[in-house]
């Protein structure tokens, strides 16, 4: 029998390939109206007055006063759906103007005048003083470690914004069913039940009076985790006011200006070294820009702090993180979820220390790797095999890293110089802490029809990562029926139970396991020709050190996925431009459910990571996002990449389906530090900041 990892044609391949897939912008509902936002032009102000132009027949505006509870629920509900008294950042929604003609609504928005009384605004992380939230944890005795240190190395790193840049912008269609008093929302999203909860909260409805349907989603990468809840409330408010379906589609500049991004961060590290160069103590003090409203910042920051010491065993730790309130756009989820900032810092720090000690970065890392059975920084445990040695062996075989490193370490001359860099990293699989058990309580259903086709009813979304296919493969394999006999549609909360959000690389590992168990039970009672149904629910019976968020202590994750990247490049020392010569990725994601899909995750994740490290420069200036288009915010094109070498290490995880672990985010996390290391070797300089643009390379000392 074939292994489950043998690739199959994706469930949605033909539909997407042929242009028949219906994205939100392709929907047409009778009487549907178009809309456009009036947004704040200033970072912080009181709204004194709004002067609307005369609205033609059939046109109307929607504001906070049209919403029973004008607060959007996402962890907290501080953010209003529409700003009513005070605006907190440039781009915050004030009004939505709707009507039958798209050009006219845009014109009406442009003619609307908002009178502000401006207030002092905090428009950079450097000047922020108000702490939105924070965490810290300690281990051992850092004071003694630093007092006894042979050497202390202190460095401060900076990371910038990163924009998810899904090619389909945020979009939603709101409908109000007047007869039933029911809110209906169609849209591009990762988490239908997040939107469902937000609509219940803002419109004071019970769960049976809200329906959320995911349309085909043109990429998410975290960007469609929480923002669709806000957009959903805005669309439903307009539909409820008018009785018409109302469509909202953000244009690209609007999307880049007002949607959540990866948190910019300043990461200050101090490392205490003994005579042999071992790190005996580490202090990390991390500041992140939370934006005007915290949103998902608390959980993002937890992941940053848990990644702060990288893949290393360090006995004495002080790790502290504070998210600062600014009058800037909200930051939120982006693939890696706080870990890319920390891994950039710790991996670069390791390279710099190795350089200062005159040893190779790989051999210096080898002095510190964690292994199975070691304690985590927060008093949990690495319960499972840590395959770093096999990953290094594989990477050496594929990239010839050590030989090239030694070669490029010799003095280079001339305009073009080469470098090679390595990074090693992990992704804590699934939600941080005890959220699966305490909050999500995932449920899903397998429904067998009389014709023996089996439908998977789950709220997880396919946003391109191939979930419809991998879920179906698991069910088909266990049931021992053809993959074509499995049905899986885009989730509709009227039809599917809440199996949780599609975030944190949790779906395949957590809900895939529920599918595996449900399928085993269905197989046991299978009667051909009969309609049957099995519901399965999350349960936790693994051995662990219970997570305590107050003490920031325990097992934050059930297990870890592991990754290694190597980047080799050539720098043009005259222009600061780089040409990639080779990029490699070795990953342990447990057992691969579909090799082709997993390779796609790796290829795509690596390039997003290289973009993060090299060219994706975005900054706020006087409160306004400067690079808000693909002209100014450059993401890599087909010319900016090379044929990456990808390999997977099989390392079965018993609580995942067929041994699978979290996979999607891991692939982004390590590319930026590997890129930076390669540039450092080529240029012979140390850098502290990403993205490492050609300008920064040239301007560095």
């Amino acid at each position, binding site marked *: 029998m074939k292994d489950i990892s043998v690739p199959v044609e994706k469930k949605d*391949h033909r539909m997407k390939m042929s*242009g028949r897939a*219906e994205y939100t912008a392709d929907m047409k509902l009778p009487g549907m109206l178009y809309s456009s936002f009036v947004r704040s032009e200033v970072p912080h102000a009181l709204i004194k007055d709004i002067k609307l132009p005369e609205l033609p027949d059939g046109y109307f505006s929607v504001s906070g006063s049209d919403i029973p509870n004008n607060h959007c629920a996402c962890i907290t509900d501080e953010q209003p759906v529409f700003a009513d008294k005070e605006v907190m950042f440039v781009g915050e929604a004030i009004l939505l103007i709707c009507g039958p003609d798209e050009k006219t609504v845009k014109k009406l928005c442009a003619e609307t005048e908002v009178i502000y009384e401006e207030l002092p605004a905090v428009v950079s992380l450097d000047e922020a003083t108000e702490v939105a939230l924070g965490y810290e944890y300690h281990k051992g005795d850092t004071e003694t470690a630093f007092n006894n240190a042979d050497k202390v190395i202190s460095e401060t790193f900076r990371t910038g914004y990163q924009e998810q840049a899904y*090619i389909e912008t945020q979009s939603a269609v709101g409908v109000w069913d007047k007869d039933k008093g029911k809110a209906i929302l169609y849209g591009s999203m990762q988490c239908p039940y997040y939107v469902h909860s937000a609509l219940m909260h803002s419109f004071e409805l019970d769960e049976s009076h809200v329906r959320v349907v995911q349309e085909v989603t043109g990429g998410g990468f975290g960007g469609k985790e929480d923002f669709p809840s806000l957009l959903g409330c805005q669309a439903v408010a307009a539909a409820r006011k008018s009785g018409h379906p109302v469509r909202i589609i953000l244009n690209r500049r609007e999307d880049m200006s007002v949607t959540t991004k990866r948190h910019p961060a300043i990461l200050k590290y101090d490392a205490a070294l003994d005579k042999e160069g071992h790190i005996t103590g580490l202090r990390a003090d991390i500041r992140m820009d939370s934006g005007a409203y915290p949103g998902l910042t608390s959980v993002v920051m937890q992941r940053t702090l848990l990644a702060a010491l990288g893949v290393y065993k360090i006995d004495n730790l002080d790790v502290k993180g504070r998210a600062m309130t600014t009058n800037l756009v909200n930051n939120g989820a982006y693939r890696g979820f706080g870990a890319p900032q920390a891994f950039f810092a710790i991996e670069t720090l390791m390279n710099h220390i190795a350089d200062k000690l005159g040893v190779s970065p790989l051999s210096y890392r080898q002095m510190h790797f964690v292994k199975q059975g070691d304690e985590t920084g927060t008093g949990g445990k690495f319960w499972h095999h840590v395959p770093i040695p096999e990953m290094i062996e594989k990477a050496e075989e594929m990239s010839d890293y050590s030989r090239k490193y030694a070669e490029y370490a010799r003095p280079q001359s001339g305009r073009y110089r080469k470098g090679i860099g390595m990074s090693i990293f992990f992704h804590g699989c699934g939600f941080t802490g005890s959220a699966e058990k305490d909050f999500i309580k995932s449920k899903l259903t397998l429904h067998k029809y009389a014709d023996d086709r089996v439908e998977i009813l789950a709220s997880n979304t396919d946003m391109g990562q191939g979930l419809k296919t991998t879920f179906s493969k698991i069910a088909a394999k266990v049931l021992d029926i053809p993959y074509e006999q499995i049905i899986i549609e885009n989730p509709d909360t009227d039809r599917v139970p809440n199996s949780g959000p599609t975030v944190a690389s949790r779906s395949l590992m957590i809900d895939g396991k529920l599918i595996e168990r449900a399928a085993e039970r269905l197989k046991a009672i299978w009667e051909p020709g009969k309609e049957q149904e099995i519901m399965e629910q999350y349960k936790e019976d693994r051995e662990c050190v219970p997570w305590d968020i107050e003490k920031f202590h325990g097992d934050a994750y059930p297990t870890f996925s592991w990754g290694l990247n190597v980047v080799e490049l050539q720098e043009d020392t005259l222009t600061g431009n780089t040409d990639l010569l080779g990029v490699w990725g070795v990953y342990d994601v447990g057992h691969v459910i579909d090799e082709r899909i997993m390779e796609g995750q790796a290829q795509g994740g690596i390039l997003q990571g290289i973009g993060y490290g090299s060219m994706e420069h975005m900054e706020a200036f006087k409160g306004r996002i400067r690079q808000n288009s693909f002209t100014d915010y450059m993401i890599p094109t087909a010319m900016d990449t090379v044929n990456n070498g990808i390999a997977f290490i099989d390392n079965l995880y018993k609580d995942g389906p067929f041994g699978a672990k979290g996979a999607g985010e891991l692939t982004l996390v390590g590319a930026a530090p590997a890129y930076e290391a390669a540039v450092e070797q080529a240029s012979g300089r140390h850098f502290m900041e990403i993205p490492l643009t050609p300008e920064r390379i040239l301007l560095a000392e």
Partner: protein
Amino acid sequence: MVEFTLNGRKIRSQMSPDTRLLDVLRGEFGLTGPKEGCGEGECGACSVLVDGKLFNSCITPLANVRGKTVVTLEGFRDSEEYKLLEKCFADAGAVQCGFCIPGMIMASEALLLRVPHPTEEEIREGLSGNLCRCTGYNMIINAVQMAAEKGDGLW
């Protein structure tokens, strides 16, 4: 009124000549293959063929296609060339979220019409006006390479 050939049929658009071709295709003719990803000619999701050449329909005024031949994915998807691309894109695992794909297919067709046996570099260049955030491009490059090899003589 602007006359042109759209997916093999002579048609007349009632829209103003300065309307974006993308809006004519999607709005007046209900062709949802071309997508709007940026609206300023940077991402290529709206790519169509105009007289066999690749155009961003979001920055092409309707007047510019007067008397010309416009092909969208809808007008290409019944061809032998499309069927081969569909198979190769599946075998290479080249499709993730799919939003860039209609444009990517038209870009591939435009390239293969011009260069039936492109090198890897030529494919990268040929698709460089089409942004994809999911795949990292390499599996798309492989798909086009595969199609060029298997489709010897088709283009």
